[in-house]
């Protein structure tokens, strides 16, 4: 199977398949870039990454090397095999036009958002444009490279990023997995250091 090596510009979606046994690497090219990501079982897309299944099984909310990403059916879909960032977010979800009106101001509705990227990607992708995947299939996503600490008092913070230029996260696919990425366009909070930047996405076979 041929590997992929693509640069995804800030604010663009990306979709692709990483086959069982292949590795997927996402590189934060310029640093502090949130990469909103969802995973689907490529042969049965009603099975997808589940934030709650994943954090419940590992007993912690952050993701790093060794973490198994579990599906809504409790199956391991991918495992993080390398991580030079150290912590990725499971709770912050994706920005949307509608949540931007709540979080920032009613007149932020027209700003670009991750959910708009997700919806456009699903509308255009050959495997999903017949409506196989819709807004109904957008559960809570992973934010690679994003730092969302929770305090023991139960507060949620959007903290400055702990990523930096060139850091990467690498996952091994345990099943054929459809990957949906929004390279986050958010300009209203520090998740992208107020400057969304490109990422690099690579896949390859392992011997």
């Amino acid at each position, binding site marked *: 199977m041929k590997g992929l090596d693509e640069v995804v510009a800030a604010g663009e979606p990306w979709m692709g398949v990483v086959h069982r046994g292949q590795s997927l690497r996402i590189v934060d090219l310029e640093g502090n870039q949130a990469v909103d990501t969802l995973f689907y079982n490529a042969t049965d897309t*009603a099975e997808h990454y589940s934030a709650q299944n994943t954090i419940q099984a590992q007993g*912690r909310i952050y993701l790093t090397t060794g973490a198994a990403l579990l599906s809504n059916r409790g199956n391991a879909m991918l495992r993080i095999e390398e991580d030079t960032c150290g912590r990725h977010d499971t709770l912050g979800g994706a920005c949307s036009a*509608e*949540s931007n*009106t*709540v979080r920032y101001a009613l007149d932020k509705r027209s700003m670009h958002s991750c959910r708009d990227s997700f919806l456009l990607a699903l509308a255009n992708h050959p495997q999903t444009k017949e409506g196989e995947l819709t807004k109904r299939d957008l559960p809570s996503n992973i934010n690679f490279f994003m730092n969302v600490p929770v305090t*023991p008092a139960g507060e949620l913070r959007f903290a400055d990023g702990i990523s930096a230029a060139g850091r990467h996260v690498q996952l091994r696919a345990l099943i054929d997995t459809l990957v949906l990425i929004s390279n986050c366009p958010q300009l209203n909070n520090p998740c992208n250091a107020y400057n969304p930047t490109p990422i690099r996405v690579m896949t390859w076979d392992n011997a």
Partner: protein
Amino acid sequence: MLWEEEIPGGAHWSGVLRRGVVLRLTAGGNDANVAALFFSREQPLERYNMADTLKAQHIAHLTAGAVCYSDMGRILCSITADSCGWHDPLCGLTDAAMIAARYGATRFQEQRNRRYVSGRDAMLVELGKYGLNERDLVANINLFSKVVVDEAGALQLVTGHAKAGHYVDLRFEMDTIVALHAGPHPLATTTAYAPPAIRLQARRGSPPAADDPCRIRCPENARGYLNTERMYSS
């Protein structure tokens, strides 16, 4: 009082709660837990959203003053009273394998209605009554359960948190499909299956005033109410 009903321990329930109705849930015993999900009655594709609820209010737990956001920037329900102090929005549901491993395998044939139903199966059954399925089974809330997160991100369920008689009031701001399961929390370590019953009491509430505690909790919530009121304006 509009109506009153008890969910036996281990059982599941669903119903439609209209805008303006307050639903009180009361724990029938210590360490109660109720998995809860909310969907717009008008368009169930609009549904409770864990991430939007947490990040709009900068919280990782729910209590009085907090609201439950849909994915469309609107408020499905508000927590107007809470004698318990902390509800868990993070940890999700039990599944059948977990329930069997922890409490033993059961079947209707032997145990009848005392069989142990998992949170996932309970929700799939209730959602199915509205044409919804596992694609709609989004991240849920566990009412009455407290789970703290330490500096390293580790989750810990606090035992002894909910006491018999603790209650939480949900004021519905939209016509909402509510699905509930009075089953054990997924991080519970007890080996006996004995989830307490939950009392439901519905009453008519007052519309949220300009100085409503949930509305003025943060500027985000003020905008969430505006978005919700805009949809119901006519």
